[in-house]
């Protein structure tokens, strides 16, 4: 049975007089421990998928199954619990709390979850052993994203959702972040979903799901994922 499965997920936004079908019956499934890239152009519905999968939004129709649970049926409170215990989120703009140091940002997440990892260990794992006590403003973009990833990982989630994790980063830093994500997936068996408009990184994924106009246009399992460092874009 698939670890994550979306069946005919629909989401419609009302924008004034216009109805936007952000998700017009998206279906896909993926296995535990896979590194998944969801790719598609802007406005295709990637973020909607992410929101629904991350428990940040509800769908209007269809089913969302994560580890056997019907996430689409969750009430607001259960959704929050779902977010705090089962989902790790990596934002495009890192969304670190400016007022907290790197370590504290990680601790902020650890505060609330059930089986947290050690903050310092996780930060060391993401390569920030020396910058733990720095504030976000004192870190580079890549370092901030590492903190963001550490914050997500420290919660020991079932699913790591990354929204354009390299969108605000330069090329090489972006590569390093993707490497970190891939390594995390490989070494820890973490299921990682990366959402990007950049199809070039698709070869590194175990599975590539392409979305166009609110529908899944292609869902391909990559039998031989490439090492991220070998990919050029």
């Amino acid at each position, binding site marked *: 049975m698939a670890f994550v499965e979306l069946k005919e997920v629909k989401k419609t936004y009302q924008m004034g007089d216009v109805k936007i079908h952000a998700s017009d019956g998206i279906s896909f499934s993926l296995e535990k421990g896979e590194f998944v890239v969801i790719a598609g152009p802007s406005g295709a519905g990637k*973020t909607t998928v992410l*929101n629904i999968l*991350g428990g*940040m*939004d509800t769908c209007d129709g269809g089913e969302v199954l994560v580890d056997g649970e019907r996430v689409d049926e969750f009430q607001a*409170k259960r959704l*929050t*619990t*779902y*977010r*705090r*215990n089962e*989902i790790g*989120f990596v*934002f*495009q*703009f890192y*969304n670190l*709390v*400016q*007022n*907290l*140091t790197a370590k*504290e940002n990680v*601790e*902020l*997440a650890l*505060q*609330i*979850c059930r089986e947290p990892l050690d903050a310092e260990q996780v930060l060391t794992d993401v390569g920030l052993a020396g910058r733990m006590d720095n*504030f*976000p*403003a*004192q870190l580079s973009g890549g370092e901030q994203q590492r903190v963001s990833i550490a*914050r997500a990982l420290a*919660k020991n989630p079932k699913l790591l959702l990354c*929204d354009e994790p390299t969108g*605000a980063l330069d090329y090489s830093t972006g590569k390093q972040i993707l490497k970190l994500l891939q390594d995390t997936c490989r070494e820890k068996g973490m299921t990682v979903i990366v959402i990007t408009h950049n199809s070039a990184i698709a070869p590194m994924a175990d599975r590539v799901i392409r979305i166009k106009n609110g529908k899944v246009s292609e869902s391909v399992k990559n039998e031989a994922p490439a090492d991220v460092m070998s990919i050029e874009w």
Partner: protein
Amino acid sequence: MDMKKSALRKEFYREIRGSLQRFLSILLISALGAAFFAGLRACKTDMLLSADAFYDRTNMMDLRIVSSMGLTQDDVRAICAADGVRAAEGVFVQDALFSDGDEDVVVRLYSMTEQVNTCLLTGGRMPQGVSECAADEFFLSARGLKLGDTLQLESGSGDGLSDTLRKTQVTIVGSVSTGRYLSSARGSSTIGNGKVAGYLVLPAENIIPEYYTEIGVLFEGTRELNSYGDEYDAVVEQCMEALQAVRPERELARLQQLQQEAYRGLDEKESEIALQEQELRKAGQELKEAQQTIADGFSEAERGREKLAAERNGLPELFAGAEAELTAGRRALAEAWEKYNVQEAPVLAAREEYDSYVRQLSDISQGPEDIRKILEVLGIDETGIIEAEQELEAARSKLEAQETALQEKEKELEAQKLQAEEKLAAAERELAGTEQELRRRESELLAAKQEYNSSLEENQNKIAKAYEAVEEGRKEIASMEAPEWYLLDRNTIESCVSFAQDADRMDAVSLVFPGIFFLVAALVSLTTMTRMVDEERTKIGTLKALGYGTADIAGKYIKYALYATLTGSVIGVLAGGKIFPYIVITTYKLVYTCLPEVVMPLHPVYSVVAVLIAVLCTAAATLAACLRALREQPAELIRPAAPKAGKRILLERVGILWRHISFSRKATLRNMFRYKKRFFMTVIGIGCCMALLLVGYGLKDSIGVMAHIQYGELCRYDISVSLDSRAPESGFAKQFGSMPGVSGASPYREAAVDLTSGATTKSVRLIVLPDAEAFDAFFVFRDRNSGEQYSINDAGIFLSEKAAKMLGVRAGDSVRLQRDAADFREVRIGEVTENYIFHYAFMTESLYRELYGEAPVYNGCYLRLEPDASEEGTAAALLRDYDEVASVLVTGTLQRQVDEMLRSLNVITWVLIVCAGMLAFIVLYNLSNINITERRRELATLKVLGFYDSEVSGYVYRENVLLTFFGILLGIALGRLLHGFVITTCEVDMVMFGHIIKPVSYLLSSLLTILFAALIGILMHFKLKRIDMVESLKSTE
């Protein structure tokens, strides 16, 4: 150029529409600031105007004249004729009692007036008939009386009301109110329980005395003026002078009139006494006469007795002749009988012989004739014998006739004798009766005489004394001093003054609090506009890049703020100027129940000033906010502002402490200090809220504590008796002290003296007690701050705190003590003691002796009662049983009176609580709003991370809780400052308010502040819930 401007204008209006919430928040805070300023400033004026309108409506006297000897119609006429007097009318006032159940209730009777001090009829009709009356409206409702009820009035002073009222049973036909009594206090009385419960207005027909107790005067031109204004005071003062000119003449006239009346009275009395004297004399005379009559009676009786005796003695003599005659007769008769007997014997013998012859013859049976013939023959002749016998018979019957006559005569004499005897006896009996009667009368007279004699002296003394009294009365009248007029203006009417004081207190409050609101308005505008400018920095940059000038760009924001402020403050002025006075006056009417009107004109000065201040505050704040942004280069402005970097705070350097603070607290602390402007604003806002509350409660504490400490702690006497000059020099304290229920007594001397230090002179009450022990028993002397207790000694006076402060002296200094114009003594101040009401200097008797070389004349007495003794009962007994007691003050009553006054302070407290609540609401709402808006992304991220709603709110609240805590701390400091200011402003010369705020007030204020903050927290929670997590995905722009 025009095109540009019109584009800008369009943008401006869209801006307002687009950010209505922001616009409204500035508008609202300006409205509130202006409303508070205009409204609270207007409160005093409107309160006073309302009272003045009522005074005018009831034609309340500008001045009342009270004389020590009553006033007359002539006085009224003379006053009417004085310059500046519009009307004057006399009124008769007396206190009376009626029983309501078991309770004797004191009512004050006023004669009905037509021009001055007319009543405002609030129900029923004005009294017309002699047995009707109108009653105090408040009194009716307080006593549960209604129109149609009948009261039986009694005088409480022994002499009946019959000299005063024609009808003592009066029916209430109307309810009235008058400007004289605004509050529920009706004054005190010397009868009953000493507390006047209400007043009755009686028609003049029911009132007997022809004099007036007081004359109410209305002056020309005062009606148009506000009676609490300076102009009014000036007019009254001027008119008072005119009356002062009338006064000596009228005082003298009244004296003469009274003297004449008194003389007439004395004359009458004198003739009465003369009459009595005459009667007494006549009674004496009558007694004497009666005695004479009795004596005469006795002597007459004596004479009668003598006469009777004489008569009795004369009786034998009287009958002697007749008896002698009788005796002679008897003797003659006896002689005649002897003679007869002699004559008879031969005849008898002859007869015998003859008869024997006959008998002898008869034996021979011869007839008689024969016999006789025989005998004749014989020579024995019977004829001789018969003849002799016949002769004898004749003699005999003659004698027997004589015998009978004599016997009859004897019988007659005997009868005469008896008659005379009887007559005498009757006369004797009569005499005895007369004598007895006389004796009875004599004893009666004796008793009467005894009585007369025994009371004679007394009566004579009485008369003599009466004469003396009359004489003395004459002397007294001759030496009578002219009555004194007291010209008492409205400042002597209790409710008039206390209302003004309340208005002043309100005013002191109104000076401070609008200031706070404007400060907060400026702060709110500053943060709001800063936020607006920050949000629009790209727009500003774009406009700048396009070539718009600073003035154009800044103008937009200033105009934005100006529009909001102007609209807000105008609304505020209009609404606040009406609402606040209305609320305040209506609330004060809980205390001043009898005030019917609420006058609230718009005050242009306050309004304009309020709008100006509001505009200046926000305009300055806005300018400050956008100038900073405008100084930056367009290129910088177009780029989004870098998020505010996190920083370590000072506290983190104290590693030990920091490590022990929980993680979420650390975040909270950092956040708090990260947004310093917001930090200060929140702290100031909450601080102001707390300060307002603290002042509200503190005001009550300070004024309340005054009565409680003064009468509950510092004065240890329960009753203060003041004595008039008739009091015996000493011993009265002992006398009072032995009354039931009294546990301690000490005489005191109280006198007004002036204390001078440098150029300052202060009038204080000098209290002299016999010794330090007496002081210890009846006073507590202590330092207000340290609580250290002092014991007085003979080395110097103790001076009350405020007097010392006003004189600028301390313990150990010397002051000049002045009894009268020419009597100065230097005296050392031993200690300065805690005291709140009036100014006192305390001195022992020995110090007094040392200073003045004489003993103090004690003119009063402090009493302490047993715990269960009734203060009122003892006070009443003192007044009743001792003539020399001039007045009695019960400490408990004083304390209650002050407590009563405190109730009116609740109004201010409520106003302040409402203000504080609004302030807290505006500030916290605004700031929380901004806080949430600015940190939207951060909060959304927290939500994505899986924070529950309550945890997200908690994350924000922890800051608010801390800010509230700091705010409360600041509020305590600020509140104490403001409290001090308000207290000093409110404080009048004669009292010192306690400069304390009770712990419970701190607690209440804090709790209320926390409550307000919590309410905002609840509101914010819903706002936080609505934050969309999708925000977290957006970029910072």
